[in-house]
């Protein structure tokens, strides 16, 4: 983006981020979700369906599923973005009114299982902009709930500070951090 003929990507980016945050905060405690399947094996769908089961009960958190993208605030996209589904994914994306958010659900949608070739894009963010990534094969319903709460800014993400090195964890603990 250019402002006064000068490229100011950082400032514009910060502004866009702030706008986006405020737009998502608008959804507050009521948000409608449309799921889009771009060629998934349907296990992600079965976990998504579990969200409306009594135990997870996502309605208590103010989330609802809607059958049409025109009524949706958020798209939950599963599958590796097969090229045959480009049309339906883009149609659903453009039919969703602004402000909107996109959650990529599962290892396929994040580029894990299928590489890019003539049949698949390999990951959803090749086709539509993705706001929140939810890893897992399939992601547990609790992981999906966390993704939804992160998307509307009601929960802090925790993976950024996660270390996969068990030895560095132990060293950090031995260095006298509060136990």
């Amino acid at each position: 983006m250019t402002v006064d003929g000068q490229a100011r990507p950082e400032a514009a980016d910060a502004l866009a981020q702030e706008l986006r945050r405020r737009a998502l905060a608008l959804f507050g405690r009521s948000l409608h979700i449309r799921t889009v399947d771009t060629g998934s094996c349907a296990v992600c769908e079965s976990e998504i369906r579990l969200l409306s089961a009594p135990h997870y009960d996502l309605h208590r958190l103010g989330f609802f599923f809607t059958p049409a993208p025109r009524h949706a605030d958020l798209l939950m996209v599963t599958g590796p973005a097969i090229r045959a589904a480009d049309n339906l994914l883009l149609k659903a994306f453009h039919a969703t009114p602004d402000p909107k958010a996109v959650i990529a659900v599962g290892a396929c949608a994040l580029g894990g299982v299928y590489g890019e070739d003539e049949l698949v894009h390999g990951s959803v963010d090749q086709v539509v902009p993705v706001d929140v990534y939810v890893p897992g094969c399939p992601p547990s319903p609790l992981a999906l709930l966390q993704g939804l709460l992160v998307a509307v800014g009601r929960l802090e993400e925790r993976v950024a500070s996660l270390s996969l090195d068990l030895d560095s964890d132990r060293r950090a603990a031995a260095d006298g951090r509060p136990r």
Partner: protein
Amino acid sequence: MAFWFYRGLRKGIVTTRYPREVDPWTRDLPTPPAFRSSRLTRALADRLVAACPSEAIRREGEELVVDLGRCTGCGRCLAVGGEAVAASGEFLLATAERSSLVKRVPIGGDREARG
């Protein structure tokens, strides 16, 4: 199911308490691997890379690069890695930044063997 029903009858609660607390059964979920960097050698790292079916693990010089977004939690690296690899137990991995799912683990086993 019976437990939830019983708790629901007893306390009037039938749902999970997430996000206030995480359900205890999630301990049994398959989760991405975590590594003991002091036990990782380059040879073992290469075997881990070969074992990973979803190309979530790759080696860049003296670092193991693990993409949690690609990990399917299949556990093949746990079978290959022995004591150097353990399940991380982390499954709440949602993030707005794709790059924060890519983790780097130093390969420290060779250095300690030499020194």
